[in-house]
């Protein structure tokens, strides 16, 4: 790979990194807190490439650079192509189902110290709801209506009707995503009847949907079934009151 090509490839990589931070799609891949690091890295790469281009224009490098040894740099075009052409969406509900391990994801007990937000049906993160119910199955959650947002999926390893609500929790980047589940108690089968949103409904503010088009995102209002947090697989149950389809949130993950 000649020096000129190296500069172009580096420029492309840097621009791609800056692009995903500027248009916000980076949250599909890494935590929001990583924005500054990714932006600075992209800008640094662009700067290094521009400095090298400027030097080469002024004083052309000797012809035989070790072009053999930098063939691997062609691989750098792969993430650039992926970001610019494919724009991979956030991990799908299929990934959540595939990634299911035996224990439901929870946060540490620190998060249960904070009191439940006031209001009729406060909105909670799924992982927050699961952590509180597992930590204290008969505690302050009992008798409260809660609003949760997640993807509707078939129940994990349970036969029969009903649905689960699932989201993905990430610590560092999408590679360590772990699913968090809540079982929906839904005798009236409201959740099952929820239509899959049409393509245009699922579109985020940037035109392309942040998650895969097949995912069914809903906002569920329901009541925590007391004691269900003590289940062996740490999946609490929510008795459904209202289900409405909603657009996929961006970021689609919880943290």
């Amino acid at each position, binding site marked *: 790979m000649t020096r000129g090509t190296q500069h172009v490839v*580096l420029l492309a990589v840097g621009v791609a*990194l800056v692009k995903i931070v500027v248009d916000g799609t980076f949250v599909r*891949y890494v935590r929001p807190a990583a924005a500054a*690091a990714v932006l600075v890295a992209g800008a640094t790469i662009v700067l290094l490439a521009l400095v090298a281009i400027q030097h080469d224009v002024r004083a052309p490098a000797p012809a035989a650079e*070790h072009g053999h040894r930098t*063939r691997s740099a062609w691989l750098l075009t792969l993430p650039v192509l992926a970001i610019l052409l494919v724009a991979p969406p956030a991990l799908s509900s299929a990934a959540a189902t595939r990634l299911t391990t035996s224990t439901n994801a929870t946060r540490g007990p620190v998060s249960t110290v904070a009191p439940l937000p006031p209001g009729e049906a406060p909105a909670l993160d799924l992982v927050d709801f699961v952590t509180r119910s597992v930590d204290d199955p008969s505690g302050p959650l009992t008798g409260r209506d809660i609003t949760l947002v997640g993807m509707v999926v078939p129940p994990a390893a349970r036969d029969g009707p009903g649905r689960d609500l699932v989201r993905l929790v990430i610590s560092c980047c999408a590679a*360590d995503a772990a699913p968090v589940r809540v079982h929906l108690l839904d005798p009236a089968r409201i959740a099952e009847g929820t239509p899959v949103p049409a393509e245009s409904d699922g579109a985020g503010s940037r035109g392309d949907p942040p998650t*895969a088009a097949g995912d069914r995102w809903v906002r569920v209002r329901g009541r925590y079934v007391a004691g269900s947090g003590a289940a062996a697989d740490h999946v609490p149950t929510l008795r459904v009151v209202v289900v409405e389809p909603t657009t996929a949130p961006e970021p689609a993950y919880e943290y």
Partner: protein
Amino acid sequence: MSVAASPAVTPSLGCARRPVRRVVVTCLAVLLALAGVRAGRTLGVEVVRDVSTVFVAVCVQALPFLVLGCVLSGVLAATVTPAVLRAVIPRRAGLAAPVGAVAGAVLPGCECASVPIAGRLIAQGAPEPAALAFLLAAPAINPVVLVSTAVAFPGRPEMVLARFVGSALTAVVVGWWWPIIGRRVVIASRRSVTDPRAVGGSRWGRFAETARHDLVGAGGFLVLGALAAAVLTVLVPGRWLASVAGHEVVAILVMALLAIVLALCSEADAFVAAALQAVPLLPRLVFLVVGPAVDLKLVALHVGTFGRSFAMRFAPPVVVVAIGAAVLAGLAVLRGAG
């Protein structure tokens, strides 16, 4: 010392093979693309989509650290001469390895930053035991990693100590052992940049050219490691982990394998280990000690920075030492704590 300058490529042989190689590579690329499409159809479009998401995620997560490492490597090349390094770092492995490990403790960041720096240290004449101990220690025992381990295992501070001991032990033992087992291995020094801008010229010029050169050299291998890790992360089913929870020895080996296959950065692997509650603590400690030392992403970076022969000879002993050190640290700290 086994550092050698880049071997001169005999032009006639290399150029004669090039057209054949090009044809072979093109055929392989086409075959891979076809296989990918076929895999997509059998596995489902979602799998291909998820693989591309995880692939981009690992790249985006790791690139800032790689850039940091290359920038620091450039700073090293521009400011620290080989003479200074030789004066500061002890020559004998006995002292050099611990010094390297201690230096690694102060550099926060994932593995991707330590590889270019270690490569630059070796190219600048630092004793190999120190540079390799630094390479293994920096991703594993820096403050950010230890803090995130403490947060991920609340109420179990002994995990932090066990991780620290295990990783530090791994770094020092490998630093001591490598001069013995790696005597005949030559680290293909891709760092010997022949371009005059990198050797002479102003400090800024040396810095910019070295950083750029290291980035171009290592970036492709990082992508390769990310690709391998993304495919395996998505395709490896989570359920079989629960089945190994019973046998501790099997669990140790499985967790070591998992640590190698999953290219997790060392700040986050504590949370992943904490979530695997079905697995006993000792195998999870093995996961935390092996991960920052050897994983697919790292091996790819090692190949790119130190050469294939080094990387292939370096990885297996490091895995063995890491597992041993983790087990020792676990038995001493975790079991001792009761």
